[in-house]
């Protein structure tokens, strides 16, 4: 075995009686792990003077697909140029496999618009996608609304178990991360606020600042963003995988509304749990504020407590809870929308999850702005 050269290729034009024939000698080992010659160099030799080629394999030692793909490539080039091919000297097995590869004609597919696109084309395509996306989003909004109405009318069908599973998944299991972030935000809020208030000797108002800030705005916002990343992405990935496995199609063909069955429990779970998490987040934020005030700014625990109670009116809770509910709905909407729109590949599932988070945060931002203005105008 050793010392044997890898593949050898020898070309010999036919003489006298076989003018117009090109003899292609294949010798040595033609294996894919031995490297392969480029048929291009050989294709140049297939000019008008050649009418026929003949493979010679007398010195062939070993072969596999390396040889076959090389010969097949040359045969294709010959077919294009109308050159006859004689492969009768190749090993019998190789002849058979080559014949099998030729047996099924090439599939003719619609041409694809592959290849890199210019900047303008890309902008155009992105705009088109966006414009196509808007009605889809509205359509989905309509379907979800109808489904919620069916729920109110007691006609929506889904499994209660799904709802409980989702509630557990988005509620209790999110407590650790919500605690950590809320504590940090409460800490920062109290620290920054107290530092400024100290200048006018009004440190005690840290309590008001932290209480109102956390309960009314920041608790809901932080919870919303955490849940968008944690649960919105998960929803999109779950529904996206179901889309890949044709599970959603299976619901549809059974006449079961995938919206009722899959989207509704997720929507309800988030609309219930995000406001509760918002409350919890506010509470943790106030604890952090208390800690900072007592240890660093010398405010008494009782003082802080009474000031907090004074600051918190019912309307602050109402604002926080309503925002939490709306954010929850936005996250579920974005997660389920992107999941339902998912394509049929692993990559598409990843894209759905990413896009769910981005969409959710965008929707939260829009909703937060609108609600803040409206509440201000209403004097709440």
């Amino acid at each position, binding site marked *: 075995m050793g010392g044997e050269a890898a593949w050898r290729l020898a070309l010999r034009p036919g003489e006298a009686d076989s003018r117009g024939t090109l003899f292609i000698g294949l010798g040595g080992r033609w294996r894919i792990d031995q490297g392969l010659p*480029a048929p291009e160099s050989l294709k140049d030799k297939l000019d008008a003077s050649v009418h026929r080629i003949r493979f010679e394999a007398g010195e062939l030692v070993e072969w596999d*697909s390396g040889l076959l793909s090389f010969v097949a*490539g040359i045969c294709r080039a010959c077919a294009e140029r109308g050159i006859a091919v004689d492969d009768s000297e190749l090993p019998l097995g190789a002849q058979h496999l080559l014949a099998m590869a*030729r*047996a*099924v004609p090439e599939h003719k597919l619609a041409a694809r618009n592959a290849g890199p696109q210019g900047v303008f084309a890309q902008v155009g395509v992105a705009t088109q996608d966006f414009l196509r996306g808007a009605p889809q989003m509205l359509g989905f909004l309509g379907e979800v609304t109808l489904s919620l109405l069916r729920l109110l009318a007691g006609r929506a069908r889904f499994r209660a178990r799904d709802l409980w599973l989702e509630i557990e998944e988005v509620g209790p299991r999110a407590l650790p991360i919500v605690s950590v972030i809320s504590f940090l935000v409460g800490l920062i809020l109290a620290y920054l606020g107290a530092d400024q208030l100290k200048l006018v000797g009004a440190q005690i108002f840290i309590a008001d600042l932290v209480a109102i800030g956390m309960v009314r705005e920041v608790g809901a916002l932080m919870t919303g963003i955490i849940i968008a990343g944690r649960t919105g992405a998960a929803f999109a990935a779950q529904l996206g995988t179901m889309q890949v496995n044709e599970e959603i199609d299976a619901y549809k063909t059974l006449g079961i509304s995938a919206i009722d069955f899959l989207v509704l429990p997720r929507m309800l779970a988030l609309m219930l749990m995000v406001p509760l998490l918002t409350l919890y987040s506010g509470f943790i934020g106030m604890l952090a504020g208390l800690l900072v005030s007592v240890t660093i700014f010398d405010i008494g625990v009782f003082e802080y407590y009474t000031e907090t109670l004074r600051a918190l009116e019912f309307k602050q809770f109402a604002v926080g809870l309503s925002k939490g509910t709306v954010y929850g709905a936005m996250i579920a909407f974005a997660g389920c929308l992107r999941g339902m729109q998912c394509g*049929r590949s692993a990559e598409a599932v990843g894209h759905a999850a990413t896009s769910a988070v981005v969409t959710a945060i965008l929707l939260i931002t829009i909703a937060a702005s609108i609600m803040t203005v409206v509440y201000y105008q209403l004097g709440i």
Partner: protein
Amino acid sequence: MDAVPHIEVRDLSMAYGDFIVQSGLDFVVNKGDIFIVMGGNGCGKTTLMRALVGLQRPAAGSVLYSGEDFWNATADEQQRLKRRLGILFQGGALWSSLTLAENVALPIAEYTGLPAARVDEIVAFKLALVGLAGCEDLYPAELSGGMKKRAGLARAMALDPEILVIDEPSSGLDPLTARRLDELIVELRDSLGTTIVVVTHELASILSIGNNSIYLDSESRRMIATGHPQDALKSGHPKVRHFLTRGGTA
């Protein structure tokens, strides 16, 4: 044939937790065999395949490739043994974000270091062999079930493996395509000397291409027959004959 069998399975048992799928499997696959694994749905054919190719550690027993015990080998040795195998999964298992051409090209590019143009040529040939010439740029989601199967086979044979393990190749194929696939399997064995382990229910394939087989029973959870499928049909265990005649004779 050989002094050391190509693949030898000794007292193999496979289980999921407490559930024993099959136990006490003993058989030998020789070089150049077309070895058929038969048995009813859920008897453990896929599980056996996963144990053979190194995806799922068996509960007991050993799988030997040319005398080397796969499950007791070091990670490097296992990697080297795996290189000798080509696998077609029951569901095709194509990479969904790659085109067909990219699916087949990946193992070739990964292991041979050939330039892209050479790789493309091999890919075109492999796809033509399974009857998918011209489908290079399609994504798996754009294929029918049978096309996925055939593309999976093209990927399994990308590197001309010494041993090809195929899980239900002809399920989902039309009868003509299924026959072409049988011919291809036989041709691969005859010309490249590939050893082929086929999990299949297709009676026509079992009887026409197989030269050795085992039958896994789903009730006793053991193998109840081994040998040439034609012999099993003529004089085998009653259950096997029942299976091979679609319940015709008891």
